[in-house]
């Protein structure tokens, strides 16, 4: 019997991404417990974490956190590879694509609120595109579009303000473990 130890070097980056992804997953689970009048209209609290990561640690880290959140979140909710998982993945993907472009907007004029609103629209856009193409072809999704767009605007703005508030807290005051 050979004893072999597989060494997986863990960098500080990995730990940080894992910690932030865990926060996003926690928010996803908490949000799943909130009753919603219309399926699909959710506050998207995990996007707060994704946006914070994007602004503080860059786009690559945000992609990791968002991907881990979708994967582990659906694993914990028991919806892995169910339609809801694919909708969630499509939304996260579209949202990240939008953020990849939007983060190059001049930061002096466009703050977290803009990014959050645009990301929320990316999210709902990706979800509705997949739903329209795959799950409900021919259904009158267009009739629901204003509802989803308005919800994305409101929740996106609120989440953006939360991100801006969190960023405004001085680094030293944050309770982050070393």
């Amino acid at each position, binding site marked *: 019997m050979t004893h072999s130890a597989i060494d997986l070097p863990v960098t500080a980056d990995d730990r940080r991404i894992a910690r932030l992804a865990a926060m996003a997953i926690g928010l996803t689970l908490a949000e799943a417990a909130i009753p919603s009048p219309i399926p699909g209209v959710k506050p998207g609290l995990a996007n707060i974490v994704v946006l914070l990561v994007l602004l503080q640690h860059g786009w690559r880290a945000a992609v990791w956190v968002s991907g881990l959140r979708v994967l582990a979140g659906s694993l914990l909710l028991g919806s892995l590879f169910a339609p809801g998982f694919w909708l969630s993945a499509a939304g996260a993907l579209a949202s990240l694509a939008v953020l990849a472009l939007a983060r190059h907007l001049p930061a002096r004029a466009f*703050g977290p*609120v803009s990014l959050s609103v645009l990301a929320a629209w990316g999210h709902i856009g990706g979800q509705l595109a997949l739903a329209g193409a795959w799950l409900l072809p021919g259904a009158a999704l267009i009739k629901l*579009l204003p509802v989803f*767009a308005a919800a994305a605007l409101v929740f996106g703005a609120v989440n953006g303000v939360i991100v801006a508030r969190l960023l405004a807290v001085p680094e030293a005051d944050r309770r982050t473990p070393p």
Partner: protein
Amino acid sequence: MLLRAGDIGVLLAGGGIVVALAVFAWGGGRGDTVVIRAAGQVVETAALTHPQRFAVDGPLGTTRIEIEPGRARVAADPSPRQLCVKQGWLTQSGQAALCLPNQVSLEIRGHASAYDTLGY
């Protein structure tokens, strides 16, 4: 600064887009003509442009229909439960008020019909 200049622009533009979407998705169904039937036969087709009144006779009596610019309703009907009267004003394409006991119906039509046909 929680809100920057561009953020306010994004929010305003977003509000505009939401309103435009709502008008685009929901507003297109306003009707412009009304079709009145008695016992299944079309007795009157009128444009919703100016105030008009019609009286249609059925097995129970006379159904009075009132038309105003953009809307129409059954003003009075001899049916016992008054369902078609209680529906009030109809404005959207595809809406209909049926006075079944008196065999009179009122249907709003628009440019784009929401349905090819409706079976009752």
